[in-house]
């Protein structure tokens, strides 16, 4: 959680507390999600744009097409295992009544969004105080959560169209093709605009890789969580540094 401050604070030595933010398991999940999605995107785009010249440069022989499809399918299995692990772990935690509701969407998130918008439109001086995950991060999580679900389900329909249509109506096949193809590109562009801006440009936030967040970032960006963990008041954030 946090390193305890020294009993007698030295006025010269400034101690900074480091907060644990993500477990090793969560960091592994992020790595696997990131790498598998990247491989799926890179092997999927040439298949989506097969009539384009650049795609035909890559898929220059039928064997290459088969090869790239094999990579796509194997990587998809990795992603499916990851998704099942993620859901399974959540269910286990739920049964043990240990599932944190930090990532769930609350009414407060909608209020935060309104206040943040007011701040961005110069109608408020300070950003709202956020908990462990702010609404921007929740949007990212749930977008990826449902996006991955759509990609996996539609991908399975495309992989086993004949078996699926013994149960479901035939038009789910072209529908799945449309979903798989569109969702992938929307998700990729969204992550590029939204997530990359927030973790690389707005500030460099590597907590998903290190697992830790320093005290200053915790006070500034997750004030409510800081107060909850330390019991200390923050003078509230939003000096406009957000």
């Amino acid at each position, binding site marked *: 959680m946090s390193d305890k401050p020294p009993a007698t604070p030295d006025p010269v030595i400034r101690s900074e507390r480091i907060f644990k933010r993500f477990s090793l398991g969560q960091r592994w999940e992020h790595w696997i999600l990131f790498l598998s999605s990247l491989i799926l995107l890179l092997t999927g785009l040439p298949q989506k744009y097969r009539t384009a010249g650049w795609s035909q440069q890559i898929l220059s022989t039928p064997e290459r097409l088969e090869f790239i499809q094999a990579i796509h399918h194997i990587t998809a299995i990795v992603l499916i295992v990851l998704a099942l692990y993620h859901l399974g772990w959540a269910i286990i935690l739920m049964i043990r009544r240990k599932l944190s509701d930090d990532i769930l969407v609350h009414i407060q998130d909608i209020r935060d969004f309104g206040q943040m918008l007011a701040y961005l439109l110069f109608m408020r001086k300070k950003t709202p105080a956020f908990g462990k995950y702010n609404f921007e991060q929740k949007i990212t999580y749930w977008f990826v959560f449902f996006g991955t679900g759509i990609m996996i389900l539609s991908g399975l329909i495309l992989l086993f169209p*004949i078996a699926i249509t013994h149960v479901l109506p*035939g038009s789910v096949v072209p529908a799945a093709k449309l979903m798989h193809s569109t969702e992938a590109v929307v998700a990729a562009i969204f992550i590029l605009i939204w997530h990359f801006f927030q973790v690389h440009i707005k500030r460099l936030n590597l907590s998903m890789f290190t697992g830790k967040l320093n005290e200053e970032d915790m006070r500034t960006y997750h004030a409510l969580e800081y107060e909850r963990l330390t019991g200390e008041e923050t003078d509230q954030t939003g000096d406009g540094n957000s």
Partner: protein
Amino acid sequence: MNNLRQRIALPIWLATVLITLGLFVIISGQARASVPDQETENYCLSCHGNPDAKMVLPSGEEVSLYISADDLQHSTHSQLGIECEACHTEIKTYPHPEISYQNRQELSQAYALACKKCHSAIYEKAQDSIHAQVAVENPEAPLCTDCHGAHDVQKPDEPRSRVSTTCSQCHSEIYGDYQSSVHGSALINEDNPDVPVCTDCHGVHNIQDPRTDQFRVDTPELCAGCHADAGLMAKYDLPADVYDLYALSWHGVDVSVYKARWPTIWHDSAVCTDCHGIHDILNTDDPQSSVNPANLLATCQNCHPEAGPNWTAAWTGHHEISLDRTPILFYVQTFYASLVQVVLWGAGIYVGLEIIRAIVNRIRRNLR
């Protein structure tokens, strides 16, 4: 006086003779140009008009030497004034020189060269055809005269159905299929000017083997030649976007890639003829049609043997996405059309506002 008369008598006489000769030459020349006199035709027919005239080749084959005067005189060549020796170049008079052909095939091949004398471009084209390729081994492969006739040469496409009956002389089984197809029956029964005859799809003189990979991947464009022609299709109340919609389909994209990159690699993704049939194409409303809803599943199962009854709806056909026909697809498309707008505009505007606010904050701090 006598002197004068004697002096002018000779020039007048000479002038009269020259003018008379000149007139004679001009008049006779005009006569030649306006009416082909076909002197040799009748001369040759004096023997070859005998229905019993024949000869036996060294191979033992019997060749009839009879030429119907009626056929000959109504042939395109005869009416243009082209005479017997134009083709039978070695025969100048009677008795004829010794023949050197061992059999009927040699004789036919030698006379095909006679066609080349005038029709050289067409002759060269025909040398690239499947017929010329098989002629090397197969004595039955057609030469010029097998399709066009010899002494009875006529325009090959008058009437249009003549083309198909010409091909049917050898390809009788295919002609049988074609005859009852939507194309063939319109040609034969209605003399329809728009439906394809054999040569419209197969080419005229440079007919290619239609069983190759290349011919297969070229099939959609071949059919599109008529079926993407809006004016022509409107005449028969048929949609003209079938090709464009096919090109967007799974089959169509696959085939277009093979056509562009690997035309010599066989590929099974369906082209028009795999579902609609080839020479036996029927109207989709016809209960016998392979793409009639009653028969569609069986047609799909030719390539997708495991497919169940729901499978046919996976093929959205040559139809745009619509609420009536494909509701699931319609809702998915509508959902994504709005989701794309909301997500990308929303994220873009929000991030844009954040950037503006951050820049303003930084300026304010520095001005403080």
